[in-house]
């Protein structure tokens, strides 16, 4: 919401500067995000009177205008189509001035004629939207030739950009902000508003049956020295319109007031300017008045062309399914039975509280008006606004809650403005249909509770009372020592004692709340936090050389199928786009996107990991199971000391997994698996098991998946479920150590030639089993394929460590064991000693 400081000062009688207001409001929870200043940078821009005009000697579109600037006359070359006749006043930008847009004005020749300045449009001056022609002042505007326009047109103003929290519906108009400011500055608040209509119909009509009359002049509150003139009603135009509210739960009150003989014309400059600084466009006098009242009181109102209301009646009812309405924004909408409408005898003429219909809208030909001032249910307006995607100044305010007690004020204020500005004649009464009354809320409050909840014993009863009364609350004695607080209807957010506590704390200022510390009581059975266990995994992955990624958890169904991960996914009902419409079932698609991005940016090598959740459909309460997962990718070439080595392969991925689990003090191992996920190469991947239980997979990407991502490399991927890992980490005790050996070891190498399909695991198992208990360790230190070894065969070079824990080993014992191993390898694995 934007608030003009000048307007606030006019309404509340406050003399604070814009900066003071902004600081105080922000401190009280009404955040001022920006202060926009108007009427600056218009030095040497003055009012001038047109004395003469003549055609330019050579250019059709230019006019030579002689103006008087208070001191003398000068001739200006003007390109505008609307140069007025002599006697009218225009705005002259003197030579030497610089306009807010940066345009510097110099004396210069235009098509051979010297121009001593410039006549400006509103837009060029930054004081309005009009750029069709130069600004011509109306007769009712003040300012003699030579007067600077800032003074003459009262242009100086500051506009506060308020960021209102949704609970502060009362500050959606200048009146509410002025009231809040008065309370914050500790000043009494008596709004200064002219409420007297200047012209009334000379006949007093009666309200139709079932409704009451709401007089436009408040009885017993005459304005001294001001009178309204009486005008005869127009023949055939009703003075009242019957109003019915069948949808009583949606509309608490509806007041319709007839104004006759309106003069449709452009608004005077001050009104246009006021709308301009608040970011609104001037339309015509009637619409501008309704907008002005909305901005002033925060209460949206509407004006219908009375002569276009079929049957001259108003029904506030729910729409019938399929009913249609053409709206002011040029669209046509099909309504549902949940939409509240204002209808005439024929059908809907407005979407209640949201937008008027185009059929019934005021226009240049409008002569008589029905003014609507109503209170619509916030939820009803909100639903309709959202359903049709129409967000207006009106719906915005009704959704948050308009003061139900402000209806009469809005009616009178609008009647007064329409009679003065649009020359309308107001019926003496409006028809007041009140479906239900919204009562003042009362709240019980103990002053001690205020002190305890804020934690400030220094707040006195008087402090609290002064603040609450300043905000419009009425306080009477309640039970015991407590208060019975009656809350004003413009503060529907105050419903409980704690709400009043906040008001006291807020108006005093949170900077005055004391600062106390407290120490939460530690819980002995809290156990290790999962977050801290996850951190250990993260440290290990980082230490193994992987960068950490945080990818979006939602992606497209196509991303899932492209990566060949499960497509049985949790889907969003209202995604922002198809690209982010399902929850990931694997972290692999995200990492592949990271690899693809790296390749596109000429960085086709690296290692990345992510720790995050996968979301799998389940039968649980939310329909989803969230599985914490660690995924890794290595791609491109391996690091060498200088330069790059060969491309990473399966063993880099396996090594990364081993490194991570080593660092965690857990042992995970890769095992051959027949069933592998679709994203892995069927021949170059393994299952990872933790203490025998499968927790995920590691391996080379399936070449088809790499192709589907247009990858130049074959990344090595791993995806591991962390649930079991975290359990194991939590259960893992400190590392246990063995005694150091007392006797020396004997190391023997064994080079054998085997068929290609004999795995190291088989060889190693055979060595350990056969050489037991002397074999302490077996390491493969060379793997060779190629000449002179026959095709389909390979050579393993093993280094076997023999040790007897209890005695010094003799060569004879080692020879015997070594020989036995070789013999068994030969017989069982077909191994031959490599020559």
């Amino acid at each position, binding site marked *: 919401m934007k608030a003009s400081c000048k307007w606030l000062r006019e309404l509340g009688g406050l003399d604070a500067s814009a900066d003071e207001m902004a600081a105080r409001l922000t401190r009280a929870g009404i955040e001022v995000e920006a202060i926009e200043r108007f009427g600056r940078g218009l030095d040497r821009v003055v009012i001038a009177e047109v004395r003469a005009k003549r055609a330019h000697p050579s250019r059709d579109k230019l006019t030579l205008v002689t103006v008087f600037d208070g001191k003398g006359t000068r001739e200006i070359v003007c390109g505008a189509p609307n140069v007025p006749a002599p006697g009218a006043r225009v705005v002259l930008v003197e030579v030497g001035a610089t306009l807010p847009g940066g345009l510097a004005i110099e004396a210069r020749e235009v098509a051979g004629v010297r121009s001593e300045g410039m006549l400006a449009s509103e837009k060029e001056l930054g004081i309005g939207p009009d750029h069709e022609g130069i600004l011509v002042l109306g007769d009712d505007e003040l300012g003699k030739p030579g007067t600077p326009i800032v003074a003459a047109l009262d242009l100086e103003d500051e506009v506060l950009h308020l960021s209102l929290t949704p609970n502060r519906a009362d500050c959606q108009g200048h009146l509410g902000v002025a009231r809040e400011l008065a309370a914050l500055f500790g000043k009494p608040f008596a709004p200064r508003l002219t409420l007297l209509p200047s012209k009334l119909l000379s006949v007093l009509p009666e309200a139709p049956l079932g409704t009451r009359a709401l007089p436009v002049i408040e009885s017993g509150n005459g304005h001294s020295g001001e009178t309204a003139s009486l005008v005869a009603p127009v023949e055939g135009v009703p003075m009242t319109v019957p109003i019915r509210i069948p949808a009583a739960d949606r509309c608490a009150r509806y007041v319709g007031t007839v104004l006759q003989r309106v003069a449709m014309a452009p608004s005077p400059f001050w009104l246009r300017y006021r709308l301009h600084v608040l970011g609104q466009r001037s339309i015509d006098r009637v619409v501008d008045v309704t907008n002005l009242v909305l901005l002033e009181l925060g209460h949206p109102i509407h004006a219908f062309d009375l002569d276009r209301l079929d049957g001259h009646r108003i029904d506030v009812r729910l729409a019938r399914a399929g009913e249609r309405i053409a709206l002011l924004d040029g669209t046509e909408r099909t309504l549902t039975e949940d939409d509240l409408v204002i209808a005439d005898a024929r059908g809907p003429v407005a979407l209640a509280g949201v937008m008027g219909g185009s059929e019934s809208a005021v226009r240049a030909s409008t002569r008589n008006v029905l003014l609507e001032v109503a209170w619509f249910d916030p939820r009803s307006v909100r639903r309709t606004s959202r359903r049709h995607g129409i967000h207006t100044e009106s719906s915005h305010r009704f959704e948050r809650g308009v003061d139900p007690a402000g209806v009469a004020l809005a009616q009178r204020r609008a009647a007064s403005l329409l009679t003065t500005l649009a020359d309308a004649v107001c019926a003496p009464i409006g028809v007041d249909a009140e479906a239900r009354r919204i009562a003042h809320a009362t709240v019980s409050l103990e002053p001690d509770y205020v002190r305890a909840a804020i934690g400030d014993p220094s707040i006195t009863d008087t402090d609290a009372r002064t603040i609450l009364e300043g905000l419009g609350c009425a306080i009477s004695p309640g039970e015991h020592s407590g208060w019975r607080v009656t809350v004003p209807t413009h503060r529907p957010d105050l419903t409980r004692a704690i709400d009043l506590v906040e008001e006291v704390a807020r108006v005093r200022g949170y900077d005055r709340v*004391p600062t106390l510390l407290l120490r939460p009581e530690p819980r002995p059975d809290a156990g290790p936090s999962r977050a801290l266990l996850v951190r250990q995994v993260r440290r290990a992955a980082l230490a193994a*050389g992987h960068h950490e990624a945080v990818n979006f958890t939602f992606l497209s169904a196509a991303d899932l199928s492209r990566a060949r991960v499960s497509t049985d996914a949790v889907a969003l009902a209202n995604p922002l786009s198809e690209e982010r419409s399902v929850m990931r079932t694997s972290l692999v698609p995200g990492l592949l996107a990271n690899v693809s991005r790296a390749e596109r940016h000429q960085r086709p090598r690296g290692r990345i990991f992510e720790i995050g959740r996968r979301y799998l459909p389940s039968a649980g309460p939310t329909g989803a199971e969230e599985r914490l997962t660690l995924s890794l990718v290595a791609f491109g070439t391996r690091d060498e000391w200088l330069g790059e080595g060969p491309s990473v392969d399966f063993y880099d991925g396996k090594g990364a997994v081993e490194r991570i689990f080593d660092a965690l003090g857990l042992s995970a191992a890769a095992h051959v698996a027949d069933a592998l996920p679709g994203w892995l190469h069927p021949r170059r991947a393994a299952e990872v098991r933790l203490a025998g239980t499968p927790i995920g997979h590691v391996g080379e990407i399936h070449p088809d998946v790499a192709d589907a991502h247009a990858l130049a490399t074959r990344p090595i991927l791993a995806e591991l479920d962390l649930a079991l890992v975290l359990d194991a980490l939590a259960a893992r005790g400190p590392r246990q150590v063995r005694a150091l050996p007392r006797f020396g070891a004997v190391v023997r190498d064994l080079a054998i030639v085997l068929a290609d399909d004999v795995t190291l695991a088989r060889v190693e198992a055979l060595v350990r089993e056969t050489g037991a208990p002397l074999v302490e360790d077996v390491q493969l230190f060379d793997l060779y394929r190629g000449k002179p070894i026959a095709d389909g065969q390979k050579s393993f070079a093993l280094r076997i460590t023999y040790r007897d824990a209890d005695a010094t080993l003799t060569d004879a014992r080692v020879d015997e064991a070594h020989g036995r191993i070789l013999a068994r390898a030969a017989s069982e694995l077909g191994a031959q000693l490599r020559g």
Partner: protein
Amino acid sequence: MTDAVQEFEAGLARLGGDVTATFEACADEQALRAANAKLVGPSGELTGLLKLMPKLPGDRRKELGQRANQVKQAIQTAFDARLAAIARALREAELSGPRIDVSLPGRAVRPGGQHPITKTIEELLDVFASLGFEISESREIELAEYNFGRLGFPPDHPATDMQDSFFVKGRTGTQVGGGGDEAVVLRTHATAIQVHEMLARKPPMAVVAAGTVYRRDDDATHSPMFHQIDGFLVDKNVSFAHLKGVLTTFLKRTFGAEVPVRFRPSYFPFVEPGGELDIGCTFCRPWVGAGSDAQRARTDACRTCKQTGWIEVLGCGSIHPVVFESCGVDPAEWSGFAWGMGIDRIAMLRHGIRDIRMLYDNDIRFLDQL
């Protein structure tokens, strides 16, 4: 007989000559060993001489033997000295020789870079843990009831709308969204941790949780997925002043004791009174030389705080009685406070990241810098 004695004595005299000079003439260890072998090696002179021993007369044998031993020892001593000198010279040459190129790259496994989001979360959680809060977590796919209803959001609050929050499709394929409590949403804040913890156990409790949250915004400054830390404390006689004390301490520990903190009212459905805490802009640092022209120029040019000198960091408040009531905790007995803070912007501030998209693109050139 005499010949043998003469030959022996002559040999000893030859060998007892200037061995040192002979050895000095050897430039390296190899030459030295060769020279030594000529004297005492298997076919060396002294070895040959000692082969004469049996031929020596018995009365001279002992004396001549001792002399031969002395000569042998002298050779050994001279050899050892020369060997040490050669080794030393080599070592000196190494130590004063050409330097290696220390600018060649080191040989190491480089650790990876930690993502700014998780790094920031870890550090902030550590501060809360040091203040006595337990670290917990809860689900991201959440019942609307927990995300909104039990937290006191009115049924038609804009956040409960399809416009602002992501709803999950029902298992039958139809949409469950639309605001009812039975709907399932991607959590819009981490605040539901309050509901989970309060339903699970009895106060007192002090819990903090970090995680991924989701809102239907996507523009230059908003990402539809982002991160938050939420925490709360419930105990007896907890006041708004405690909230101010604990959170101010947290902010000072996190951003520096010298950074000013501003506390102002705000509104969230699940707290009352509600507020926001701002810190002095850590980019233009308006408290340094406050009021000076230089400071004002810095702040006026600051894009981080949009020239205000302040950065909003967290929303907070006393826990609303409605939340206690909906979680089966008696608000007459227990009181508490809660807060939530966005992580992404703090991470961006700390790492000098200007564009929020960098956080989630995971460009390797970005990760390389971390």
